[in-house]
């Protein structure tokens, strides 16, 4: 993807939108992106629409994207529906980038929508469980407990305390308190995080991302096309790599799939992990941040908790991690999350992130992952790198 740029992004605040349907939310995010791009919407040639749970939760089993686009005023253009569980958003973004890179369209839109707060938590929980493999789902696999096991193993490996993992939430809820689009805007203290209700040991309530409603969108095109329209900063998409979790015992199991996908993204971008100067993570359970920045090779094995303690990953540190607040603070409307990550990278690179602005933001990476295959690995991993 040589010369693909993001010309506009849009989002609605994540949280509880009792009176908005997925169509209302999609329309608002799409038009926010169109206005941000200052683009004649007739130039958009194709839309990639991501959503994960509207089947089980809203009864919309097929062609959801066409209905979302129709409500936003678009009919006739090609629409591709994208479902990859919690990684759907960046997968839609990847589709839009490839759409314009191939020359099939001059401008492509990616939009993610999700409505999870339907007033029936048990039903929402059941729908999320459906993102696991059919056997895991029928055995009641819980993503919280899956993360809990992985984090327990990591804590034992490096001798980390409960304070070490709780500190991630303190950092991310502080970042989230500066983000007007985040769902949870209350900064939490170490004591509050540790004394909150246990969800799945060692994870407490504030470590887990809240289910949420929301939508986010991005419009991409070739750089030379955009340059004819605007002189603003245009973040370049230097990589958007996608991989799937591997079956146990296949390939080199000493390397995680996150690492493999990240390496392919670094190679595509002709950069190394040391060039990344801020990161948005898929911290569905906040402490997973420690594992993820190591798997991305942004820090050395065992270094993540030290970085956190020393403020390296705080706003103003050398490599701020999840300046938006991440999933635990921003909320996690699953099909929309990946595009919210893309929007955050764009705002940071354009220097428009307000109080949570990363100084000197030049190269940002987003890790988005979703689902579960018959292993401890996710089904889909997507690593996106944007550069100014």
């Amino acid at each position, binding site marked *: 993807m040589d010369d693909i740029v993001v010309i506009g992004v849009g989002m609605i605040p994540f949280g509880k939108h009792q009176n908005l349907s997925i169509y209302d939310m999609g329309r608002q995010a799409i038009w926010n992106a169109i206005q941000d791009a200052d683009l004649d919407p007739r130039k958009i040639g194709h839309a990639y629409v991501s959503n994960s749970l509207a089947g089980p939760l809203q009864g919309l089993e097929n062609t959801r994207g066409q209905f979302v686009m129709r409500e936003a005023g678009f009919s006739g253009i090609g629409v591709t529906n994208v479902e990859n569980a919690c990684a759907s958003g960046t997968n839609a973004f990847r589709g839009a980038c490839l759409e314009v890179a191939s020359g099939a369209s001059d401008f492509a839109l990616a939009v993610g929508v999700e409505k999870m707060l339907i007033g029936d938590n048990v039903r929402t929980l059941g729908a999320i469980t459906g993102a696991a493999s059919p056997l895991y789902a029928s055995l009641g*696999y819980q993503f919280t407990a899956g993360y809990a096991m992985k984090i327990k193993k990591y804590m034992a490996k490096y001798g980390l305390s409960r304070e070490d993992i709780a500190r991630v939430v303190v950092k991310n809820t502080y970042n989230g308190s500066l983000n007007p689009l985040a769902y949870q805007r209350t900064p939490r203290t170490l004591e509050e995080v540790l004394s909150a209700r246990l969800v799945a040991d060692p994870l407490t309530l504030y470590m887990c991302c809240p289910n949420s409603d929301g939508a986010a969108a991005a419009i991409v095109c070739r750089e030379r096309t955009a340059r004819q329209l605007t002189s603003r900063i245009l973040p370049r998409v230097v990589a958007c790599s996608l991989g799937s979790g591997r079956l146990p015992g296949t390939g080199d199991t000493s390397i995680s799939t996150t690492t493999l996908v990240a390496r392919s993204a670094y190679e595509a971008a002709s950069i190394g992990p040391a060039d990344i100067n801020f990161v948005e993570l898929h911290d569905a359970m906040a402490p997973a941040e420690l594992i993820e920045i190591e798997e991305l090779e942004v820090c050395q094995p065992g270094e993540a908790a030290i970085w956190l303690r020393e403020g390296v990953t705080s706003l103003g540190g050398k490599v701020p991690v999840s300046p938006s607040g991440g999933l635990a603070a921003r909320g996690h409307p699953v099909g929309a999350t990946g595009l919210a990550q893309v929007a955050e990278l764009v705002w940071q690179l354009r220097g428009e992130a307000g109080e949570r602005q990363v100084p000197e933001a030049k190269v940002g990476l987003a890790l988005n992952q979703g689902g579960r295959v018959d292993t401890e690995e996710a089904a889909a991993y997507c690593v996106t790198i944007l550069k100014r």
Partner: protein
Amino acid sequence: MGDNQKAASSDVVYGWSDLFSPDEEGQGPALVGSRCSTCGYIAFPSLQVCPTCLIAGTMSRHVLSRSGKLENFSVVRQAPKGFQAPYIQAFIRLPEGLAIFTHLIGVDPDKDLIEIGTLWHVTAAVIKTRDDGQPLTGYAFAPAREMING
């Protein structure tokens, strides 16, 4: 396999008849996967194509070890529909190398000491209650000592 649609209304978990043998060769219940005759790869649930050789037709039915060591677990305190919290979600590592996702039964997550590395034994168990109130059967692992004591 292929009975994903039926799983919701069935009284057994997904793929049950292929993955569980109630009394394999008269020696009690066992999980059933498949094994590659070329490289020895073992899959559970079973696969029809070996993912390491990527050659069709090398996989055949393979009965797994009945006991394995507890590798990792977490107590689920917020349960999806039909499941009764708290329950214990775990991975059991079998001697042949693969890890099995399972519930642990026969222990109280709030009272009993559950230790990594201890031996657990496979059995059939009621996993959840269906929408119509009937039980849904799947497999689970119980402490191996309780199996010996009956």
